[in-house]
């Protein structure tokens, strides 16, 4: 009897996850329906107007999709030169040593810092630097948000790719050394190709994290609703426009925000699924 109750509890708990996930998707889809219906799905995605004048409401997601993709892509570009050396340091050059342990502990500490703190740091430390370098007059913008976003995803990319660097068999490394390779050559010709798909998937997962990051981006991106003309200009990401406007929005505008949320959800889900699939494949190989 006891056993039966326990089983029922397990089943209920297990069913809850798909129910919650399905519920979120259902709510997003029903609430976004008005916007998609009014503007048309494709038109909504490709229009760059965002005006809430009464009677002439026009909402399009393109500036925000652009903002999200641009900040994420830039963050990835800035993140690679830091995370790849850390991965090699921990996973190869100082593998198993005390100093590698200390470094990976600090790296994972960075991953645990709440995003509001990154936002504060970016706002009060990085933004003035950007201003004093005359990169942009107001200091905030796509570039500033991307730089802080890059620092935030370094721990994810670095610790995961370090795992794949570590997994390269010693046999293969010694094989390369026995042919007279230097360490740098061995890293380039053996570790990178062999651990490559794993390292790649680490970055995909890091991207998944950058896409949805809200607080830091909202604090640093400048929150303007036009298409950004260059990376030093201000803009909005999908997450930051929602965070900025959900409180004051209703009707068609709220529905449009939720539609943006649905698109963001889909993009993030797809990126994460691809990342997880690649990681699984890299682990087997």
């Amino acid at each position: 009897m006891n056993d039966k109750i326990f089983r029922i509890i397990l089943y209920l708990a297990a069913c809850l996850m798909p129910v919650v996930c399905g519920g979120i998707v259902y709510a997003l889809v029903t609430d976004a329906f008005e916007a998609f219906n009014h503007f048309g799905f494709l038109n909504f995605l490709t229009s760059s107007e965002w005006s809430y004048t009464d009677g002439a409401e026009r909402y399009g997601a393109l500036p925000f999709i652009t903002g999200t993709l641009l900040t994420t892509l830039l963050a990835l570009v800035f993140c690679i030169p830091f995370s790849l050396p850390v991965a090699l340091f921990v996973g190869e050059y100082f593998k198993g040593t005390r100093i590698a342990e200390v470094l990976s502990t600090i790296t994972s500490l960075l991953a645990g810092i709440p995003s509001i703190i990154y936002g504060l740091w970016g706002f009060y430390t990085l933004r003035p630097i950007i201003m004093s370098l005359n990169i942009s007059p107001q200091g905030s913008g796509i570039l500033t948000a991307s730089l802080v976003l890059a620092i935030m995803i370094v721990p994810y990319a670095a610790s995961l790719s370090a795992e794949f660097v570590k997994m390269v068999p010693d046999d293969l490394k010694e094989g390369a050394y026995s042919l007279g390779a230097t360490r740098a050559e061995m890293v380039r010709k053996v570790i990178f190709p062999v651990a490559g798909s794993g390292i790649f998937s680490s970055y995909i997962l890091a991207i998944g994290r950058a896409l949805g990051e809200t607080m830091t981006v909202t604090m640093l991106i400048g929150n303007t609703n036009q298409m950004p003309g260059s990376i030093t200009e201000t803009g909005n990401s999908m997450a930051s426009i929602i965070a900025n406007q959900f409180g004051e929005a209703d009707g068609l505008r709220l529905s449009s925000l939720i539609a943006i949320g649905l698109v963001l959800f889909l993009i993030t889900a797809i990126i994460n699924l691809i990342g997880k699939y690649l990681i699984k494949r890299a682990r087997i190989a």
Partner: protein
Amino acid sequence: MELINPILEFKKVCVSYTKQTMAVKYVSAQIERNSITAIMGPSGCGKSTLLRAVNLMHNLYPNIHVDGEILLNGADILTMEPIDVRRKVGMVFQRPTPFPTMSIYDNVLAGFTLNGIRLSKNEREETVESCLRSVSLWDEVKDVLNKKGTFLSGGQQQRLCIARALALKPDILLMDEPTSALDPIATKHIEELLLQLKNDVTILIVTHNMGQAMRISSRSMFMYLGELIEYDDTQKMFSDPSDERTKAYLTGKMG
């Protein structure tokens, strides 16, 4: 027996993993040019450790210390750059280690690409063909040169690794139990191959297969607990070992 022109000479070679434990103790021996020399002994006797000292593999691990002298054509390799030594001293490992992301073709040429040496297309084609021919693999793989090296059978992979080592035209080929992961037929292939290769290269092979040592080597070392107990002509050692421990090992009383 003193050789006139040994290719390799160990002089009081010691290898230690920690300060207290020595894995190889004061080994002195001369290796004859263009011959196969076998190193035998029970597990943990230091035979692989001694072999790996010859291409400075121990330099990769900072805790391991090598003392004494190892003379390659009269020059002490312990004072040389590891990279230069490893180009003259090839190595084949217990498990076949073709680089999994490289094709068969690229695996043969790996020694050049890893060293940043550029070959012309003709040189590359010639090297690949002659090296694969010298390990009798050419006919089996000439139509699939672009497939990955890991696509081959274990014995073929090991021959590919030998070809890869030979491509750099080494003076010595070190082999660390190269057939222990292979089936008997593949093993026979490799043994026949080694007998052909000794005309071009000196082979130093670690094996715990006594039959293999007897079939292919002209001289044999027997090591026990880090010491070189006996070093003699293989025929002589197998028929009339001078040390009790060698006799015990060869007759299966000690393994």
